[in-house]
């Protein structure tokens, strides 16, 4: 029955589930942990070889596929879509579609918003608080793509609306860049990984930061003063998906894994372990009360409606953003 070589994020393939899957199907699973950039770089190096199943974010699929052709189209007839929230399937199909073909199945979603120490920064509730002098020296965010988008929303723009107009988008990014450079003096540091993100806010060195919901909740468990909140102008929603590399050697196993891990019980297990929200439709039955509480505490109905889902990034836009990020980092 072979092996399944899976490249994914930490926490997305818990050991218990891997064992269970191996027992059920007889397929051995080899897991490699990675992140978006590395995952794509690796697949590009082999033109989609080396792994049978990958888990990039949905917005990172289409432009990579157009340029490097590293994925197989998804045969949705093999996916048990009954298990998945329909809206998520729709979003995945739309965002990762290229030339009428779809390249991803949704798995986990979440948002980037604010992680705030409510005791020390009671008023912080929007992206714009990331340049609020009140919190000078106690602000942190990651100097990557989301901060550009978030800051744009915080300044009252809608960057996703400009995805059709490169020039206008560049102008907007320039404005955001200027803002972030101006306000750089308030920043404690730019965090670089999930653990620094959590460490900074837990140690009290930082009271306002932009971060991932799951991280915020993990921190909340240790210190109830800290929590994840949706920014007023909208949290940024991301979806991590399954994508099948072009040279996958075991496509069957890949689909088996997709269907397996999206079973409500299994999906709930992942969420309970990691706090990441799953797209599995009936998983909520199996979720811990704490996880549910996290969700309802941080997301009001309005917040959910206001989530800005990442759209597929048009090609060439990554360069604009990278340059902007360099500029901010280099500024004194």
């Amino acid at each position, binding site marked *: 029955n072979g092996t399944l070589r899976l490249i994914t994020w930490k926490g997305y393939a818990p050991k218990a589930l891997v064992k269970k899957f191996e027992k059920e199907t007889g397929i051995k699973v080899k897991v*490699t942990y990675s992140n978006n950039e590395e995952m794509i770089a690796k697949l590009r190096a*082999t033109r989609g*070889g080396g792994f049978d199943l990958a888990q990039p974010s949905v917005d990172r699929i289409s432009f990579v596929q157009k340029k490097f052709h590293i994925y197989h189209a998804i045969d949705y007839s093999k996916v048990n879509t009954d298990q998945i929230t329909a809206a998520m399937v729709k979003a995945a199909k739309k965002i990762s579609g290229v030339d009428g073909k779809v390249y991803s199945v949704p798995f986990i979603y979440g948002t980037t918003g604010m992680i705030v120490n409510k005791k020390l920064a009671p008023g912080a509730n929007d992206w714009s608080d990331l340049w609020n002098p009140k919190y000078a020296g106690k602000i942190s965010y990651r100097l990557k793509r989301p901060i550009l988008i978030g800051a744009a929303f915080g300044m009252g723009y809608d960057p996703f609306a400009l995805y059709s107009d490169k020039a206008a988008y560049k102008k907007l990014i320039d404005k955001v860049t200027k803002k972030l450079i101006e306000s750089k003096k308030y920043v404690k540091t730019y965090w670089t990984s*999930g653990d620094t993100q959590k*460490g900074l806010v837990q140690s009290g060195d930082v009271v306002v930061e932009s971060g991932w919901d799951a991280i915020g909740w993990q921190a909340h468990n240790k210190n109830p003063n800290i929590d994840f909140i949706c920014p007023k102008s909208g949290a940024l929603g991301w979806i991590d998906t399954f994508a099948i590399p072009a*040279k996958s050697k075991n496509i069957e196993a890949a689909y088996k894994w997709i269907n397996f891990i999206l079973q409500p019980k299994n999906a709930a297990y992942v969420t309970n372990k990691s706090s990441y929200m799953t797209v599995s439709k009936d998983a909520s039955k199996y979720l811990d009360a704490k996880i549910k509480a996290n969700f309802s505490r941080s997301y009001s109905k309005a917040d959910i409606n206001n989530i800005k889902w990442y759209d597929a990034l048009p090609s060439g836009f990554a360069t604009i953003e990278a340059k902007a990020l360099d500029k901010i980092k280099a500024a004194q």
Partner: protein
Amino acid sequence: MENKKGFNITFYLLILPVLLWLIVLIVLPHLDLLISSFQGDSDAGGKVFTLEHYMAFFQSKIYWLTFINTAAYAIGITILAFIVTFPVAFYLTKVISKKYASFLALLLLIPLWVGELVTVYGWMIILGDHGVINEFLLSIGLIDKPIDMLYTNFSMTIGLLYISMLFMVVPIMSTLESLDDSLIEAASDLGASKWTIFTKIIIPYSMPGITSGGIIVFMLVIGDYVAPDILGGKSSLWFTEQIYNEFLSTFNWGEGAAFGFLLLMISSSIIWLALKLTGQKLERVGS
């Protein structure tokens, strides 16, 4: 001590801050990690002394199996590094003239200069399905579809070899440099074959260099993270990666630190054992 260098007490006072600085720079960062490896959270939220982080290693089969696997790999790569670099070291010190030797030795420094990440990406390009090697083999018709080389133990081994070569070559070169050519000639004069000269004279003579090179490479490989991560296939295979996972994904500093020290201790024991078994001394390492 007899003040034999003509330097008096003022000299010691001068050097004291530097020594202190060195200790702060080298011992302290690890001391703090050491402490945190013994710290657990008490129910009251404070810190208590605990051995649980260390116990976790022995209780969980996956951890120590990984460790054994990693250690076995590191030993293998150390041996490979020796096999690959010894002839090079011999060539550079004993066969070609000094002039070329120092240029070629500079080549060996390239991996260090270019940085691990960049070279690892270089390897990705070479070993990939459409990489240089596969393209070449395909074009001469030796194979009809690309061989899987990247993200396998093969690519990881190459990557690790590449990074550790320098640290094997330099100590071996420095012992070989002091090998008097006439020892080789004397052995040959006494009727020894090339193989005998190699095994009975050259290898035993360069044993101190091989030992120090071996220790450094072993420790380097067992502690490396980037190459197994990027070039390796089965990620959970590498113990260091497990440590980082402890640090990064569960933010469990205590356990991560404990594992780090276990790594240092067990691998030091392996080295100690190897030294005892081969009858070597630690003296020349580090110089």
